[in-house]
């Protein structure tokens, strides 16, 4: 199965405006046909009340550590759940196709979204 090298994950927490082009450039690869990005932005209202500003505060060293760990977990969970890769395990007396528990989401339709929200929500909660 494709390995995910934690050294290839970049996690930053900054008070400065983000330059999305910088991050696109970091993952650009001649062999890649698309780069997907996500930008969370601040909205000016919540439950009918105008939002004047948001103040952020972080326990930065722990935030970096958890983000890194979640990024790896999320990627591996997704990989196990939806990426069509299989492996067959051979024993001295036979063989079996391995089956990821996570991929059972594919069998239960709408539940797939709910199950997928677990790690994503945890990452967002940072």
């Amino acid at each position, binding site marked *: 199965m494709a390995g995910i090298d934690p050294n290839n994950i970049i996690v930053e927490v900054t008070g400065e405006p983000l330059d999305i082009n910088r991050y696109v450039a970091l993952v650009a690869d001649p062999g890649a046909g698309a780069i997907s990005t996500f930008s969370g932005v601040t909205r000016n209202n919540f439950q009918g009340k105008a939002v004047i500003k948001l103040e952020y*505060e972080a*326990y930065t060293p*722990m*935030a970096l550590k958890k983000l890194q760990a979640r990024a790896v977990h999320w990627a591996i969970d997704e990989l196990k759940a939806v990426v069509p890769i299989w492996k067959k395990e051979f024993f001295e007396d036979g063989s079996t196709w391995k089956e990821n528990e996570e991929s059972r989401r594919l069998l239960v339709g709408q539940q797939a979204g709910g199950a997928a929200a677990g790690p994503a929500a945890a990452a*967002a*909660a*940072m």
Partner: protein
Amino acid sequence: MQIKVLYFAKSREVAGIAEQAFNLPDGADTADLLQHIISSHPALESVMKTCVFALNQEYLRPEDKEALKDGDEVAVIPPLSGG
């Protein structure tokens, strides 16, 4: 032993400080630390019911009674609101 406590978000506002050193007797655990924190900042008592600790950057609940050692860093973590 000396424990460094970090307060964040609401706990920081209510405590009025972001960082505080506590001198605890050897053998003290996280539940003991919680009592010292509340004694030092009585206004934190209700806030602490919604908080967990991060001991050296790993989450745990104060009632887990994790043993502390000199130099440990304990962060008070109110409900998260990132994202």
